[in-house]
């Protein structure tokens, strides 16, 4: 299995994603510079957390127009698995690989905190090693994690079982407590919490490891 982590100017959790992937895969993923328009062969693309382009426009908006993203969108449409974490989720929404958008947190402040998530759909390549309804301890660290979409879109996400995770105690005002969603085919996952920062005992929780283990197992 091959994985690629895309590095944008301002990405800052790429190291965390690389470590979590390495733990699951047994070797390092490739790291791709955003300016490259060619993406090597890969089974999984990860868009890491951070502040791409400083998030000086709307979060993720600049990165969505980065040369590499055209390639990412093409691959995603061909079924290559894509995981966007935090800023990566924001970028996926900006590219419209995922519906909706991430607004400023309802309290207008950055929040770094341990939160509980509920696994809403364990039937995906990203979540299969979780139990349906399982509660997991992870962390959030973001200023713009307030998921927003029209009621129609939200209803469609519910009906189509595209909601991957929900907050048990919503830290940012996200609609319907949504922490992470799939695309229609469940091949693309975007989520705000940093499951890559909860993969070893030192992190205080290892509940995030199953996400990486799931996708690695599915693609091997």
């Amino acid at each position, binding site marked *: 299995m091959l994985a690629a982590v895309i590095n944008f100017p301002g990405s800052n959790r790429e190291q965390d994603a690389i470590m979590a992937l390495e733990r699951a895969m047994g070797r390092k993923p490739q790291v791709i510079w955003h300016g490259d328009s060619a993406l090597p062969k890969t089974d999984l693309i990860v868009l890491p957390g951070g502040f791409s382009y400083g998030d000086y426009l709307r979060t993720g908006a600049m990165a969505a127009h980065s040369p590499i993203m055209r390639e990412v969108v093409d691959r995603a449409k061909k079924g290559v698995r894509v995981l966007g974490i935090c800023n990566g989720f924001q970028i996926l929404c900006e590219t419209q690989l995922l519906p909706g958008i991430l607004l400023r947190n309802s309290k207008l402040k950055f929040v770094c905190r341990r939160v509980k998530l509920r696994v809403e759909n364990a039937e995906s390549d990203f979540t299969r090693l979780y139990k349906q309804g399982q509660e997991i301890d992870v962390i959030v*660290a973001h200023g713009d994690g307030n998921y927003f979409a029209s009621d129609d879109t939200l209803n469609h996400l519910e009906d189509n079982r595209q909601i991957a995770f929900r907050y048990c105690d919503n830290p940012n005002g996200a609609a319907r407590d949504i922490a992470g969603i799939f695309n229609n085919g469940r091949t693309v996952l975007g989520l705000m919490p940093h499951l890559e920062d909860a993969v070893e005992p030192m992190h205080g929780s290892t509940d995030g490891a199953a996400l990486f283990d799931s996708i690695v197992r599915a693609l091997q």
Partner: protein
Amino acid sequence: MNMTAQKKANASAELEHLIADHGMTREEYDVLLRVLGRDPSLAELGVAAAMWSEHCSYKSTRVWLKQLPTKAPHVICGPGENAGVIDIGEGLAAIFKIESHNHPSYIEPYQGAATGVGGILRDVFTMGARPIANLNALRFGDPKHPKTKSIVAGVVAGIGGYGNCVGIPTVGGETNFHASYNGNCLVNAMTVGIADKNKIFYSKAAGVGNPVVYVGSKTGRDGIKGATMASGEFNADAESKRPTVQVGDPFTEKLLIEACLELMATDAIISIQDMGAAGLTSSAVEMASKGNLGIELDLDKVPLRALGMSAYEIMLSESQERMLIVLKPGREVEAGNIFRKWELDFAVIGKLTASGHLVGKRHGKTEIDIPVGPLVDQSPLYNRPWEPTAQLETLPANAYPLPAGMTILDALQKLMASPDLCSRRWIWEQYDSLVGADTAQGPGGDAAVVRIHNTQRALAMVVDCSPRYCAADPIMGGKQAVVETWRNLTAVGARPLAITDNMNFGNPEKPRIMGQFVGAVQGMREACLALDYPVVSGNCSLYNETNGNPIMPAPVIGGVGILQDVTKAMTISFKAEGETIFVFGDTLGHIGQSLYLRELHGREEGAPPPVNLAAEKRLGDFIRNLIDDRAITSCHDVSDGGLVVALAEMALAGDKGCHLKADDGLGASYWFGEDQGRYVVTTNQPEKLEKLAKTAGISYAIIGHVAGKALAMSGSRPLDLTQLRTLHESWLPAYMSD
């Protein structure tokens, strides 16, 4: 008076005004005349004034700072460079420093604090380190003061806004409130980084003819010193009204870190220096002076963001996110490509010369030509008059019993909900403390613990100061600040290695304030020597006064230590029902300057608690061994609020209560006294601990055991943890109307 005399008198008055506007004395100006052998140009005056400012020259403090111990076998580089460097074994070095951004943060809290973080990050990565953690020490005015709330909001958002975006975790800090900071908040930021021990970068220039390169952001008119900027004579247009506070751009900083580290991985760099206070002036002078060389700058080549900037403005701009680099000859293209990849400015702006002069040209005209050696050597040095702080009497232990009708646990509730002891969660949840996935222990413990990437070892780090102790007795307060960092590092199991200091004081021209400084240095010196814990970097912030009211002195200490095994890092939380609670060290009921006295009796009086350095060392080494042997399950040093506050914090952290024994008849002073040199520890091997303590001659008391979900002691109704938690967590969010 004839016309010529009148003209002369006018010119002389104008000159006096100009000198004063640059914060110089007439005597200092006369020295400049001798250094130059002629009248200075305006730009030269600006350069000299900046270099000789208190901030850059340490002219009031140098004579005293020299007394601080700076050497140890593990010190690679002590004070004098951008940051201190220590050997942490296995080929690695830790590089760290603390720096203040007090005045700007008061004027413009968000940007002042943000650029404080940016500046200290640059000091650390300039030397070749990848920053791994930030900490901060904050002091705000009385919560009731009308400005306090907005300053807290701005400073915290600024620190978070910068650190979060750059992607360096903010892992620890401290915050106090006191009326003496009403007009002068303190914002001290510390960065810790890690570098290859054999790849440390210094600022000393070398090699006549080598290119001097400018990288990073463009230079604008921001940050040109308030004192100089405000003068209508040099700059009467509207530009001069632009704020004197710099504006930070953390995104550019992130790119600058990555670009500099990429260039540092090559061998193209001879020396490198960030442009901090006094911008291009201080970085150019610093590099040239250390290399005993001259430096010639073509200021037309400096990337500018404003039109029509003069040599004066270019040399004194404090625009952020800029570095000056001396490259090996012929490496310009390679280096330029790296910075272009990161979309940063890169310009060769000059070269090193054998002249020994700093030369600055603008529009083909030499605006600056100063001999660097004399400029640095003739820098003013003052041995200012000082008077020692009067000793206060030690209060008897029974001087202030509990207010009528209150139990110990009633008083505890009041303390735990007070501004200085309540939870700081509202603050640290705005900081990303986990980015990097190497944070083993973030805010809320005795010290932060950050794993050294790709190893099982970790650095522990902490910032501490108790200004109320320093105001009451600067010697004891200085000593205590150093010792408290040492104790906090010990409490997580780390071996303390070295410190950085941030000396925040009032006006040094007042003998009383200078006496506080002298005392604090003396106390710090004694502690550093006794603990083999040298100072490797630091910063002074003086003139923290408003309307003649000085701040309580705050020699803030940042300590760094090493853990050989991150899995042994100790935490403060109670772990398991039934475990025995020990307190190590002597509890004598020292009530003077305690928070109990202030919060329950409204008094700030008495001598602060004495520090016994030999006992501290012995006890700390003992505790560290217990942690290393896995003989204890939690550990917390006793500090603000005393023994029962330490117990309450451990209970809240572990969500487990405790049953406590009686108080030796000392009453309130037993539970709330702030005797130094104490640790609370829990264990499931009490007999072993007693035996070890007896053998080592360490005094201890068994004060109870972990039990239930409440704090319980005889004579008080049990205090439910849920209730305590609500009190503890509520004050700050309620104050900030969140």
